[in-house]
């Protein structure tokens, strides 16, 4: 017998009461839950209101164009909103933005930094996406389109634009068909970038590249036949012969020793330039080495090809920030890896030196390193050595970030389970093989987010180079603009503009690093 008082059919679900749904519920639940929360909300709303009401008139009265000096701006604001109103003068940015971006880089050559910047992403692609074809070709395509847009904006539709379109089309195709090909771009990018940014003869970077290829070739061919140690020695010798001038310095040192000894007995001075004849070789050894400039000069004489040379003092603004940031971080990464390995080494001396170096660099402010670059480096290098301030700053910033990278990589190394090391030993791999094949690929993967944050920090810190007189976007270019009699009295606008660009770049990178972190996390758990 059926229970008659039991319903047979279900009631249609009813909408929740008004207080439990919709906007009101959300507001109550999220903003006014309890007295404490209510106070917080009101406080936050008040802060927001104050901020907006303080800055709104200034922003709303902004002058966007049609003013070529501060006086024009003041007049335009007064005409718009009455004599006492204050207003932003964005017209200054309109007139001076190229300086904030490119510094004093000649406008007809802007295509070079733009193209280099585009290629930077292509060069990074194999590192970021490994063998993922679709991601890589997408990246190449997007970067190509953006680069071309920038080029047309800066330069109009010119020969370089066509060249760039062709180049990026080829790269995108290569990424889609055989992503490994892009590794070539990664390898030649450092040399290409140097040449594109500074210009000069193409044979300089090519001969340097050849030199490095030679060293690698020596290692690869000699290592199986002669063993690691002999191969290393050969490689060092090859490198020295190609790039350095050891003979002069050895001779100078030898002369010093000989003279020191001789001064006890006689008063004669032994002259190092005579070294060639002392050894009976009949020529001055000093002219023989290094090979690299000779190779490059020979080729330049045969097949001259030059880009217009751009001196370092033309670099400024965000161009300078990127040059310093990117070159320092990329050179410092290998150094950082070596330092991290040194710090974890069993050898007491190697460990002590690594720890000492890392802790010293991390213990002093970057600004003192920059002052070292500008004031002290000249003392530590041989007399008459001169190279320009940007290069000196890059060297010191590299040293600085090497220490930070070393700590990041050390974190990655420490995160690897011990079993990985033991497994590598069990396989009979030697130290470098184990590092190359087992440890580093895993440790570096874990370290990538840390390296990205080091880069973000470093990129923000490039603003400090203004203290040694370089034209960074934040203080350097801004000071120059404010020294212009037409723009005297401008203050907030350049800082807001520069701050906004820094925010976009750094925020983008930190989001990317978080994305990477998440991606890597799922791989490991």
């Amino acid at each position, binding site marked *: 017998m059926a229970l008659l008082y039991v319903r047979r059919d279900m009631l249609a679900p009813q909408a929740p009461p008004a207080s439990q749904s919709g906007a009101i519920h959300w507001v109550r639940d999220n903003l006014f839950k309890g007295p404490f929360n209510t106070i917080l909300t009101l406080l936050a709303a008040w802060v927001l209101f104050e901020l907006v009401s303080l800055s709104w008139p200034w922003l709303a009265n902004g002058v966007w164009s049609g003013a070529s000096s501060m006086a024009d701006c003041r007049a335009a604001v007064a005409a718009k909103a009455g004599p006492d109103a204050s207003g932003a003068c964005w017209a200054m940015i309109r007139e001076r933005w190229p300086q904030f971006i490119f510094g004093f880089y000649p406008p007809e050559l802007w295509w070079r930094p733009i193209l280099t910047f585009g290629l930077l992403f292509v060069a990074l692609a194999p590192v970021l996406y490994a063998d993922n074809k679709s991601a890589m070709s997408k990246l190449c395509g997007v970067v190509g389109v953006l680069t071309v847009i920038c080029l047309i904006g800066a330069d109009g539709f010119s020969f370089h634009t066509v060249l760039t379109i062709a180049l990026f089309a080829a790269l995108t195709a290569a990424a889609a068909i055989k992503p490994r090909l892009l590794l070539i771009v990664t390898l030649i990018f450092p040399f290409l970038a140097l040449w594109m940014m500074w210009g000069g003869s193409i044979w300089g970077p090519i001969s340097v590249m050849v030199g490095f290829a030679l060293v690698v070739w020596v290692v690869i061919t000699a290592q199986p036949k002669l063993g690691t140690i002999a191969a290393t020695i050969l490689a060092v010798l090859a490198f020295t012969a190609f790039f350095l001038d050891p003979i002069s310095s050895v001779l*100078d040192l030898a002369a010093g020793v000989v*003279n020191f000894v001789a001064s006890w007995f006689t008063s004669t001075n032994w002259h190092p330039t005579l070294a060639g004849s002392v050894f009976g070789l009949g020529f001055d050894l000093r002219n023989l080495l290094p090979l690299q400039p000779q190779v490059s000069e020979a080729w330049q004489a045969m097949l001259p090809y030059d880009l217009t040379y751009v001196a370092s003092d033309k670099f400024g603004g965000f161009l300078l920030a990127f040059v310093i940031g990117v070159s320092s971080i990329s050179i410092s990464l290998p150094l950082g890896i070596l330092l991290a390995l040194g710090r974890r080494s069993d050898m007491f001396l190697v460990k002590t030196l690594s720890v000492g170096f890392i802790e010293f660099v991390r213990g002093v402010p970057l600004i003192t390193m920059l002052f070292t670059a500008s004031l002290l480096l000249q003392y530590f290098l041989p007399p008459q050595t001169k190279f320009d301030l940007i290069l000196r700053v890059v060297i010191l910033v590299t040293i600085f970030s090497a220490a930070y990278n070393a700590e990041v990589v050390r974190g990655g190394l420490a995160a690897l389970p011990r079993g990985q090391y033991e497994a590598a030993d069990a396989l009979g791999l030697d130290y470098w093989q184990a590092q190359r094949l087992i440890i580093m690929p895993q440790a570096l993967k874990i370290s990538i987010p840390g390296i990205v944050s080091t880069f973000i920090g470093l990129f923000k810190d490039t603003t400090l180079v203004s203290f040694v007189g370089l034209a960074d976007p934040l203080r350097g270019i801004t000071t120059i603009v404010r*020294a212009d009699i037409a723009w005297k009295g401008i203050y907030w606008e350049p800082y807001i503009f520069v701050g906004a660009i820094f925010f976009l770049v750094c925020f983008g990178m930190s989001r990317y690093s978080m994305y990477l972190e998440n991606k890597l996390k799922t791989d490991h758990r």
Partner: protein
Amino acid sequence: MKKSVFFGALAATTVLAGSAFAGTLDDVKARGELICGANVGLTGFGAPDATGAYKGFDVDLCKAIAAAVLGDAAKVKYVPTTGETRFTALASGEVDVLIRNSTWTYSRDTDLKFDFVAVNYYDGQGFMVKKELGVSSAKELDGATVCIQTGTTTELNLADFFKSNNISYTPVTVGDDSEALRQYDAGACDAYTTDASGLAASRASLANPADHIILPEIISKEPLGPVVRHGDNNWGDIVRWTYYALLEAEEKGITKANIDTVGTSTTDPEVKRLLGLEGDLGAMMGLDKEWAKRAIAASGNYGEIFEANIGTSTPIGLARGLNALWTQGGLQYAPPFR
């Protein structure tokens, strides 16, 4: 002890071994470019404009030197220097000559091992205050807050001035000129002190120049001039006499406009010597005959450079004052060219 002897011996030999200082003149000629330590942000004296080209009173002297040595006033590379990095840049050989409002002082000349070869601007430290303060003398500034630019002689002068007048003050040490001016304008300091020339330039750029006065006291001597390294006397001579050539040109009425014709029309032997029409003055410093002519042609004589960059017709509006020629009651005086 032993060690230092060793390295001393080492050092001595290497210096003897004579990578030896090549003359700066040879360096510049070989490089094809003069490297000039410049100011990056001092309106009228040295600052890059919107296209990055450096302009100013000091910059024109760089151009004149380049014209004299290399024959082309455009062959100058300007290395931006701050108050703190300028002397190191010069000492390390990063720049050939420093023309950046540097005051000639005893210790800089001797202890820092530099040569101040001439004085291209006689300046003195002064004070600027707002009119509404009702101050008419710097001695009434007891208890005031004073903005100063760091890295200069001004901070020492200021301390000395207040000390000798037995009054107190609060210093605000600021990094650069435009920031100091902003602070002064905002009322963060009562007085702004720097070289009188800089004060005039700053006053001109304020919204209402008439609301500000420059106090009559000049509390220091600030002879500003080009600086070269100790020891390379020939290079020092070139910089010095290029500058004097500009002065002499003004005295003799040689201008940018008439430089090509004045040589033929004049009977003054000194003008002829200066322009290389008589004798060979240039050879004595390793230059050619027409060095001075090119230097003057680069941006005009001293008076023209002054008027074009900082003179009364410019927004900065400086009067010649001490920098008038000696014939007009000033201190600018070129030794004879013979």
